[in-house]
């Protein structure tokens, strides 16, 4: 393979300077537009009820209030288009969770909003709230959602589990629970809409998927897509939290702007953001796993219930991904999996880094460790004997022809962490501070997979200017994850190794860039990257022809490297050829579509080629548990990730470190509490606890490259994976330390102590 000039190097992020110096403009920083109005959401005070009347007269008379917009004012459809199309923009007849938007107050200044919101009287006849998925699943339960309370039941039926278990020497069972996780991105949701003179609408905001927002705004206003321009402003973190949620609130803001004919902005406080936006699904699962005495897995069953909240939103996809990932990265001949996404009277759960997988990885990896205990086998060895390797077949019946770096991640992680020595040391720790070490191995299906087949394609365009500088456009977004850097490097490499300083990404606007599909599922690097690579090669071929003429050799013999066209000792700079192409009217722009390779899925058997490729990882956590206080300290964390090809190694390491921090929060402290009346009790960072720098151990990122031939320069997506195994690895380490099984995330000190004491903790 050709040596790479730019890909594989840790170049500086093009967006870093503006962000650290404060020059980057987030939506709420945008210069005030003339006549700008402010929006405040009228929220449901109860988790379930029938709306009997909405009294707005007093609120309308508040000085500065311009309008109060309700569901019946919607000119188009009261709908956010997404999978089941069950998600409404403004509640009209019924409210389904506390905090659900009922209307919007629009005012000249934010001060009037608070006063007016207090004066809106919503007359609601309360209905009994169903806050637990188990209650909602009962056959006689009231229907929360017109579709019924079970949104999905995804299955895997592989082999024959009964005979599988009959073959097993050891069978282990376990029940596991995980809680909510809040995205806690830096920038709360902020959106602005402004009507255009041609009866259209412009929308600005921090978001992952501008084309989703475009579709929602067009639906709500009842206008054509080409009348809606959505501009992604600098986005201060998302983690999945800005995948679907901005669509609903953009619909509301656009509606307000449509009626008033003026620009309207909505910016959430942290508290409003936490009560109004999506979370990671809480989960309840029951696992059963059987193995032969040598550790070889022969059967696995899993039942998982995911608490989806009041609308399906992304839950059909989240629960499907959970299904595919349910049994880990192992060869298991007999499998039965049942995953349910269930409606409750709570804010809709949605996308969150890992998308339904951290829950099932926790359960599967815990039960694997229990199996290792029963077998008296080193848990890493148990995994080594079962993990998927090149040529193996997954539990969904998919053969893996390439890019399976799992074995290497396991090996590297074991070596770098000195696993055996530390495991032995942990066993010998005495006193009140108990050491423990635990591992998790897991995979991640890159991209949307068979469930998202319809939208899994990416368009992109590249334009070389007359001076040799380059502009590229994609519809995927930079939200802090580093996509702009990675795509800049891919473009620079694909144009012959030119300096990345010559390359600029176009600001994402639905009117100026192509739809590359959503920026989710760790798909931007390989989907947008591939589309760009194709576009670049088209341009480069034309430039190569011109260079060949200049160098007096056939185009095919021109070597392009280091930003230069070469023939023997003669060489011409990329910029010079660009200039010549421009003068000779050679087209210097290209547009390309990359279509995801085929996937398949049989809904009855759960068999098929679920994803085009998988990323793999091994996590190892070393902890110390204070058995008197129950406090867990993570001492060290090793994370080995097969990313195909690290386009920018420093960004890969940054992703690993950031994901591990988020995973430590998920494992040990993040606990979102819902009161009996359905309200979130801790919607702020004083009471919803995320880790600080003092809570973070030394993290050792380990990069493994098992190239994906279809990916740009061998790369495959991996951005979500660093979080995914943390809960499992830490729970296994804690279980190892205290000699008792951990069955619930987060692992709070009170829970650990309760395991030691007779007194048990009341239900959280």
């Amino acid at each position, binding site marked *: 393979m050709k040596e790479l000039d730019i890909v594989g190097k840790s170049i500086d992020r093009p967006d870093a300077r503006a962000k650290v110096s404060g020059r980057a403009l987030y939506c709420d920083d945008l210069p005030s537009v003339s006549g700008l109005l402010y929006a405040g959401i009228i929220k449901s005070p109860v988790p379930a009820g029938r709306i009997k009347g909405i009294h707005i007269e007093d609120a309308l008379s508040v000085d500065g209030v311009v309008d109060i917009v309700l569901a019946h004012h919607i000119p188009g459809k009261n709908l956010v288009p997404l999978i089941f199309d069950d998600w409404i923009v403004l509640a009209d007849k019924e409210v389904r969770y506390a905090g659900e938007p009922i209307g919007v107050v629009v005012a000249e200044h934010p*001060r009037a909003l*608070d*006063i007016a*919101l*207090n004066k809106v009287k919503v007359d609601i006849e309360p209905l009994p709230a169903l806050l637990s998925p188990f209650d909602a699943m009962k056959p006689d339960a009231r229907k929360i959602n017109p579709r019924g309370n079970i949104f999905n039941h995804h299955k895997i039926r592989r082999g024959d589990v009964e005979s599988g278990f009959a073959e097993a020497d050891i069978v282990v069972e376990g029940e596991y629970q995980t809680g909510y996780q809040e995205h806690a991105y830096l920038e709360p949701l902020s959106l602005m809409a402004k009507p255009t003179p041609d009866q259209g609408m412009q929308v600005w905001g921090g978001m992952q998927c501008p084309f989703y927002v475009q579709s929602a705004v067009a639906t709500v206003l009842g206008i054509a897509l080409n009348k809606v321009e959505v501009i992604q402003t600098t986005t201060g973190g998302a983690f999945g939290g800005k995948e679907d949620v901005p669509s609903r609130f953009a619909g509301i803001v656009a509606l307000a702007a449509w009626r008033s004919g003026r620009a309207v902005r909505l910016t959430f406080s942290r508290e409003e953001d936490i009560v109004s936006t999506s979370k990671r699904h809480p989960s309840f699962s029951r696992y059963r796993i059987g193995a032969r005495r040598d550790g070889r897995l022969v059967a696995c069953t899993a039942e998982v219930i995911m608490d989806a909240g009041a609308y399906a939103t992304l839950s059909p996809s989240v629960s499907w991904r959970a299904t595919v990932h349910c049994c880990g990265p192992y060869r298991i001949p007999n499998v039965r999996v049942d995953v349910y996404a269930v409606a409750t009277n709570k804010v809709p759960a949605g996308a969150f880094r890992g998308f339904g997988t951290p829950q099932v990885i926790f359960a599967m990896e815990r039960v694997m460790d229990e199996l290792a205990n029963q077998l008296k086998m080193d848990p890493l060895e148990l995994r080594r004997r079962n993990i998927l390797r090149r040529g193996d077949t997954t539990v969904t019946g998919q053969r893996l022809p390439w890019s399976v770096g799992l074995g290497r991640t396991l090996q590297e992680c074991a070596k770098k962490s000195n696993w055996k020595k530390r495991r032995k040391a942990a066993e010998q720790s005495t006193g009140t501070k108990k050491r423990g070490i635990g591992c998790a191995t897991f995979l991640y299906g890159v991209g949307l997979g068979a469930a998202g087949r319809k939208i899994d394609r990416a368009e992109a365009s590249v334009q070389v200017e007359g001076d040799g500088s380059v502009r590229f456009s994609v519809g995927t977004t930079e939200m802090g994850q580093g996509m702009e850097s990675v795509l800049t490097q891919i473009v620079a490499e694909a144009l012959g190794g030119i300096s990345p300083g010559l390359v600029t990404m176009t600001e994402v606007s639905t009117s100026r860039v192509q739809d590359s599909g959503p920026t989710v599922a760790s798909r931007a690097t390989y989907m947008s990257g591939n589309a760009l690579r194709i576009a670049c090669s088209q341009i480069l071929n034309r430039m190569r022809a011109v260079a060949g003429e200049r160098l007096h050799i056939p185009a095919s013999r021109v070597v392009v490297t280091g930003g230069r066209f070469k023939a023997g000792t003669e060489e011409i700079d990329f910029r010079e050829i660009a200039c010549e192409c421009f003068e000779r009217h050679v087209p210097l722009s290209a547009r390309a579509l990359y279509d995801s390779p085929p996937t398949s899925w049989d809904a009855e058997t759960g068999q098929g080629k679920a994803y085009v490729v998988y990323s793999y990882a091994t996590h190892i956590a070393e902890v110390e548990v204070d058995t*008197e*206080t*129950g*406090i867990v300290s993570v001492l060290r964390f090793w994370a080995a990730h097969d990313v195909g090809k690290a386009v920018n190694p420093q960004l890969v390491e940054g992703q690993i470190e950031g994901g591990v921090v988020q995973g430590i929060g998920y494992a040990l*402290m993040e606990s979102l*509490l819902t009161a009996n009346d359905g309200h979130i*009790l*801790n919607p702020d960072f*004083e*009471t919803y*606890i995320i*880790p*600080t*720098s*003092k*809570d973070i151990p030394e993290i050792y990122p380990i990069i493994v490259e098992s190239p994906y031939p279809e990916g740009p320069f061998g790369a495959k997506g991996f951005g979500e994976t660093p979080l995914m195994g943390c809960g499992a690895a830490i729970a296994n380490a804690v279980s190892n330390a205290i000699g008792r099984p951990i069955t619930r995330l987060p692992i709070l*000190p*009170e829970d650990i*102590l309760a395991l030691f*004491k007779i*007194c048990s*903790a*009341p239900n959280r």
Partner: protein
Amino acid sequence: MHHSIRDIDYYKPTSIDEALQITHQFCTDPQQKDVKFLAGGTDLIPNIKDGNVRPGVIVEITDIGELRGITQENDQILIKAGTPFDEIVDSPILQKTAPVLVNACGQIGGVQIRNRATIGGNLVNASPSGDSIPPLFVLKSRLHIASLSDGKRVDKIVPIEEFFIGAGKTILRGGELLTAVSFPVPDPQSKGFFMKLGQRRAMTISKVSIALLAKISDSQIDWIRIALGAVAPTVIRARNTESFLSGKNVDDSDTIQQAMEIIKSEVSPIDDIRSYAWYRREMCAVLLKRGLLSVKSG
């Protein structure tokens, strides 16, 4: 609902007398606007934002030079109320005379909070989890309060244990300003200990905390003072435990076991969003044990 800053009258005096005159004027006003002093604002501003307090007047006291500083006069230490925690943590006087206070103040919030938040604010906010309060209890602190009476400044001094009357409640009345906290330099042979348990390692409110000051000679406890945070409506002294322990041998494990039982019986913790009553009660015993182990090891 948010309380707008525009609804609040704002003053920024440069002397204690001026601050007292401003507040006095509003306290005698028939409309009785609620006056709040603003120092670091790390409690007040979130409280205003959350609508827990709605002051009509804010008197910012950060420009009052005489409200800031740490001094030692003979065996008396004086910390002015407007002194931020980072100055306390860095104070050579306090590092030498009251490491237990320095240790506790160094665990409050994070760097940014400690740069702004003041010891006076921590006292006046009167949270049972205020981390500077347990050490001030065991140091036998006294609080200096100024007010105006018939146009003249009056200063009074009250023992810290009389200052708090409930969660978030003190004896301070309208027009009164906490100006300083003082305490006698502890016996140089005594040793202190502070430990808090929070939900994480920084930027965290104590689920339970302990401060302990004891003089131990040849393993015998001459005297011991123990204060606990976040296990009662105010910070409390564990007096039964103290009197049980005084005169006892600190190396005797039975003694420690008994003291651990006694301390659990003197607290009245609650379940809340941060933890459970049972956990807090258990932790009082664990923290006591750790404190005793720490002070005896010298």
